[in-house]
Structure formats: structure tokens, C-alpha cells
């Protein structure tokens, strides 16, 4: 017979759940409001969403250090807090871009905001646990919402993107489940901490099965992180979705995936299984190379940026392979810096969004569109150029510091050749970023009308660009405090 179970409220550690709860409440509130009051302005929803995100953020700030709750299902440690922070900040930046000049149907719908909040909740759960079940659920919640958000852009390309993303996601989900099964069979547990303990006790045998489990997990997470060869969705999905959403996708799902990957791979890197290191290096290198050389030949800026974000993911993968505290700090530093720049860059494309494709039947932002932009819209061109140089890792802009720290970490870990490969790749990458700059600055204008480049701009969007730009330029000053925060949190989570 079952004896009654008594659970004290304190042991649940409700504070850990608070951020997600707030957002879930927010999503429900939005849906309810929509039931009663139709035709509310989109600015209302945006601000409401922003408000909830803000509250969520304040709830998050109180948290630090590793603490578990809800029968040890929840695990909020340093990287969790960091990742949630990044997710929330990007979300806030993203949702403001909804206040564009041109009307877009999806932003008028309350469901959009509700799904958006659900998605954030999903990501937050994903990073706030080490239980594979909850990770899987968070992942799926977020993904399903995301597919819908993409499709709601309501273009043929958006549907195509959503279906491609969805189908591959379904396959990835299958692999995730299979990997979980393998580890469950190996250890009798679905919690990473227990898995580690048991595997340690079993001395990491049998090797093949463990490695196979890792492989399935790598494929599933690699899909989220857009690691070759599971990256094929990235350019198509970015191209199909609206620019800010593409920017958002290049940051948030990846950081969530990175956190899971860090937690998961930490087990094996601690055990110093050389296979994992080698395979990760292999994946990182082909991811970088393939993405970079493919980006060289792109004709559309958005697609180019998609490949660029694959390459950046490959870059970060190297630090994942190292797995030291410093390396994990490097990942987060890189990602924070990359976040601002990338969102800024995609927002710039969003600003340049217009109704019809003017210069190419397929692409909205072909390179030719930006020809001679500096003559008709010098400010925009300069800002865009700064973002491009930043993504290229040009000093002293933000990503450079991330790159510096990351390569420094790789060098410290003794992988000098890998570091050389990384810098060679960043040298290759310069070409395609520069291609846009060449078009903007060195070619003759394609149009007299500078408004085409700011067709979709509005004050809030300009503010977003301003924030990201400022951060990008004066990153030199921010790097020190950010790195301080990251290191503190990282050390406290013992990764």
C-alpha cells in the first residue's frame, strides 16, 4: 500500500518556477483578454508581453547559484540563469520589432503573443532542468510554438520553412527519445546527474552503447544548434521567416540547445572520453568550413546571415568540446556579444523590409538591393557595415572580444591547430560579410529613393537598433563586467 506523502512547500522551492509561471500566466492572460476585447492595438500586446518578460526577468534576477526544486526536477544553476537571461533579453528585443511601420497580420493576433510567451516558457524549462523528460517537453513546447510563429508570417515561403523545420524537428525528436532510451537502459535514470553517477560507477562501459547514445543526442541537439549535417534547415527557415524572427532563432533556441549540450556533454568530457572531443572537433570544423564556403556564394543577405550563424555555432562548438569553466564562460560571452549584433543585423533587414520583392523574384534582400546604399542612406549603411564587421570579428567591436576569448580558450586547452583552423575560417568569413559592405559602399546606387531602406522603420525599432549598435560598438567597456558576471555564475554552477 502507498503511504501518504507529505511534501513541505519549502522543499518545492517555488521561486525556481516563478519565472516560467509568470510567463505562462501572461500567455493565458493574453488569450483571455483576446476573448473579451477584440481588435486591440498590437502595441498593447507588445507592451503587455514586454511587461511580462520584464517581470519574469526580475523574478530571475534573484536566482543564482545551483538550487534544485520540485523533487529535484528543476535545476537552476549559473548557466541556467545566464541562459534564461539571454533568452529574456533577446525576447524583449525581438518583440519590440513587432511595432513596425508596415502592418503585418501576425502581429495583430493575440495568439502570436501567447505562443511567443509559451515558447519562452519552453526554452526556460529546457535550460532549468537536468531531467531529460522536462528537457524534452520544454524543447517541444518551444519548438511547436516556434513552428507556428514562423508559419504565421503568412507567406508561402514561411509555410515552406515551417514545414521543413517541423519535419526535421520531428525526426530530431525521435533521436532525442532514442538517446534518452539508451541512457535509461544504461543507467535506469533519466536525470543527467544520476546518469553521470551510474556511468561513473560502471566505468563507462559498454562503450559502443554510450557512444551511440551520445550520437543520437548530438544529432538531436545538433539540429537545434544547426551543426552540420543537420543544419540544412537553417538557411531555408531563416529565409522564410520574418527577419527579426530569424535573428531570434539564431540566438535563443541555440543558447537553449547549448545549455543542454553543456550539461549533457559535461558528463563525458569530465570522464575524458577522447572520442567525444574528437567528434566534436570534427563536427565543429566541418560546420565552420561548410557554412563559410557556402555563405560565400549566397545572393541574399538573409540567407548569408543564416549560413553565418551556422558558422558561429560551429565556432562555439569548439568551446563546447573543451568543457572547462573558462570554455563555458567563453561560450556565454560569445553568445551575449553575438546576440546583440545578430539581432541588430536582422533588425536592420527588417527595417529594409518592403511589400514586394523589387530586385529579385525570390529574395527580399538580395545583395544588389544594397548597392550604393551609402549614397542614399548613409546612416543605415554605416550601421549595417558596423554589424557586418562585428560579425566578421573585426576589432574592437563586440564579437571580436568573444572570438578573442574563445580562441584564447582553445589555445589554452592546447588545441593550437584547431585555433588556427578557427582563424582561417574567420578569414574566409570576412569575404561574405565584406561582400555586403562592398555592395553598400563601393557600388553605384541602384535607386534614388533612400526610403526603400527604411520602409519598415519606426521609433521602437530604431531604439532596438540603437541599443544593439551601442552595445556592439562600446563592447570593449562591457566585456569586463559581463565576463565577471558570467565567470561568477559559471563557477557557482560548477561546470
Amino acid at each position, binding site marked *: 500500500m502507498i503511504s501518504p506523502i507529505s511534501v513541505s512547500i519549502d522543499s518545492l522551492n517555488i521561486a525556481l518556477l516563478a519565472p516560467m509561471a509568470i510567463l505562462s500566466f501572461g500567455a493565458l492572460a493574453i488569450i483571455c483578454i483576446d476573448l473579451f476585447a477584440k481588435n486591440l492595438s498590437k502595441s498593447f500586446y507588445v507592451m503587455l508581453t514586454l511587461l511580462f518578460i520584464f517581470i519574469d526577468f526580475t523574478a530571475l534576477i534573484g536566482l543564482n547559484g545551483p538550487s534544485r526544486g520540485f523533487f529535484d*526536477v528543476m535545476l537552476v544553476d549559473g548557466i541556467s540563469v545566464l541562459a534564461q537571461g539571454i533568452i529574456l533579453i533577446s525576447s524583449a528585443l525581438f518583440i519590440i520589432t513587432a511595432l513596425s511601420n508596415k502592418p503585418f497580420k501576425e502581429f495583430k493576433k493575440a495568439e502570436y503573443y501567447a505562443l511567443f510567451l509559451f515558447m519562452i516558457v519552453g526554452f526556460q524549462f529546457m535550460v532549468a532542468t537536468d531531467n531529460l523528460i522536462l528537457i524534452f517537453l520544454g524543447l*517541444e513546447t518551444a519548438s511547436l510554438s516556434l513552428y507556428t510563429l514562423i508559419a504565421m508570417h503568412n507567406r508561402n515561403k514561411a509555410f515552406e520553412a515551417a514545414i521543413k523545420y517541423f519535419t526535421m524537428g520531428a525526426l530530431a525528436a525521435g533521436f532525442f527519445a532514442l538517446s534518452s532510451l539508451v541512457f535509461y537502459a544504461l543507467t*535506469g535514470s533519466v536525470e543527467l546527474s544520476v546518469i553521470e553517477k551510474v556511468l561513473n560507477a560502471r566505468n563507462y562501459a*559498454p562503450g559502443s552503447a554510450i557512444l551511440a547514445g551520445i550520437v543520437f543526442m548530438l544529432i538531436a541537439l545538433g539540429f537545434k544548434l544547426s551543426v552540420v549535417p543537420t543544419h540544412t534547415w537553417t538557411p531555408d527557415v531563416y529565409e522564410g521567416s520574418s527577419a527579426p524572427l530569424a535573428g531570434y532563432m539564431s540566438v535563443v533556441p541555440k543558447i537553449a540547445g547549448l545549455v543542454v549540450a553543456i550539461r549533457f556533454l559535461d558528463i563525458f568530457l569530465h570522464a575524458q572520453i577522447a572520442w567525444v572531443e574528437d567528434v566534436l572537433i570534427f563536427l565543429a570544423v566541418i560546420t565552420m568550413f561548410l557554412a563559410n564556403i557556402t555563405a560565400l556564394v549566397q545572393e541574399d543577405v538573409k540567407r548569408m546571415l543564416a549560413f553565418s550563424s551556422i558558422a558561429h555555432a560551429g565556432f562555439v562548438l569548439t568551446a563546447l568540446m573543451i568543457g572547462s569553466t573558462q570554455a563555458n564562460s567563453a561560450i556565454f560571452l560569445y553568445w551575449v556579444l553575438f546576440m546583440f549584433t545578430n539581432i541588430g543585423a536582422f533588425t536592420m533587414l527588417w527595417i529594409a523590409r518592403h511589400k514586394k520583392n523589387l530586385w529579385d523574384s525570390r529574395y527580399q534582400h538580395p545583395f544588389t538591393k544594397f548597392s550604393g546604399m551609402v549614397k542614399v542612406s548613409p546612416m543605415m549603411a554605416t550601421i549595417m557595415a558596423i554589424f557586418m564587421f562585428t560579425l566578421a570579428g573585426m576589432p574592437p567591436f563586440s564579437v571580436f572580444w568573444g572570438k578573442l576569448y574563445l580562441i584564447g580558450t582553445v589555445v589554452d586547452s592546447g588545441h593550437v591547430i584547431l585555433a588556427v583552423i578557427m582563424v582561417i575560417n574567420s578569414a574566409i568569413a570576412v569575404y561574405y560579410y565584406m561582400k555586403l559592405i562592398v555592395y553598400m559602399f563601393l557600388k553605384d546606387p541602384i535607386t534614388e529613393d533612400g526610403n526603400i531602406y527604411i520602409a519598415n522603420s519606426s521609433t521602437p525599432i530604431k531604439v532596438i537598433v540603437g541599443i544593439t549598435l551601442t552595445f556592439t560598438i562600446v563592447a570593449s567597456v562591457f566585456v569586463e563586467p559581463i565576463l565577471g558576471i558570467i565567470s561568477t555564475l559559471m563557477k557557482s554552477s560548477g561546470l
Partner: protein
Amino acid sequence: MFEAIAFYTFSILVIGMFGIVVFSKNALYAMSALAGGMIFISGFFFLLDADFLGVVQIVVYTGAVMALYAFGMMFFDSTRDVKENIKFKKIIYTLSVLSAIFTIFILMAPIFSTKIEAIYPTLQGVGNVQMIGLILFTKYLVPFEVAAIMLLAAMIAGIVLVKVKMEETPTNIEVARGEK
């Protein structure tokens, strides 16, 4: 003995059904086979003392999921044979065989351990459903709620997607096809 017979019977049935799903040219057959396969899978659950799962499998999968598919099928008018233009057959065969061999090879290996203590052991004399309920509302309370959120989100998503009004004419697709 009974277990073995049941296992092999169900195995053959399930593999057969899913084989039809994978290889059939007719969507209707495929769907029916899938539904059948699902039901037979619930047989395994019962065999494995997971009564609750067995029930859920029948109710959710065969009841809800397959019904959804059936509705979709009506919508798509897929009673006809499906013409599939499969290219690179050799690659597909190679990949199929290889992935099958590797997956099965790995799962056939004795990967489980004998020394593991159950963390949430099944208690003697307590029904499966009861046990599930107990764990679900203590340990897995949060996942359970997240699943609720997920289902809600999926529902909203489904509604939103179907509700979407057409903005662009399908001409773009024609153009894209014409390019090939």
C-alpha cells in the same frame, strides 16, 4: 511461454503493420495499418505491466491521433495511390540498411546493468495506474504541467494555422516549380 508467444505474435504484427505504413502506396492503407500497429503496441504495454500506458496508447493514439489523421486524409483526398518520385534509390537503400544495422546492433547489445536500483520502484500490490498517478503528481508535477502548456500551445497553434487567411496567390509556387 505465454509471454514469448504473445511477444512474437505482436512483434510480427507490429512489424508487418508498420511495414505497410512505410511501404504502402495507398495512404489509406498506410493509415489503417498505422492505427493497427498502434493498437498492437498497446499489447506490449500490457505485457510489460504498463497498463496505464496501454490504455493511453489506445485512447490517445488510436483514438485521437489517428482520428486527426483521418480528418486530414479526408481533407487531402488521398484515397488514390500516392505517386512518389523517389530519386537516388541506391543511397536510400544504403542508408536504410546501414542505419538499421547500426541501430539494431547497438540496441541488441546487453547495454543494461544488473546492479541498478530503481529510483522510483514499482511497489508490489499497488496498481500501475496508482503508481503512475503518484509519481506524476509528485516527482513529475512540473513536467506534467509543462505538458499541459505544450498541449495548449499545440492547440492554439493548430487553430491559428488553420484559421490563416490566404494572402498570396499560389502563383509563386508555380513560378518556383517552373524554374525546375
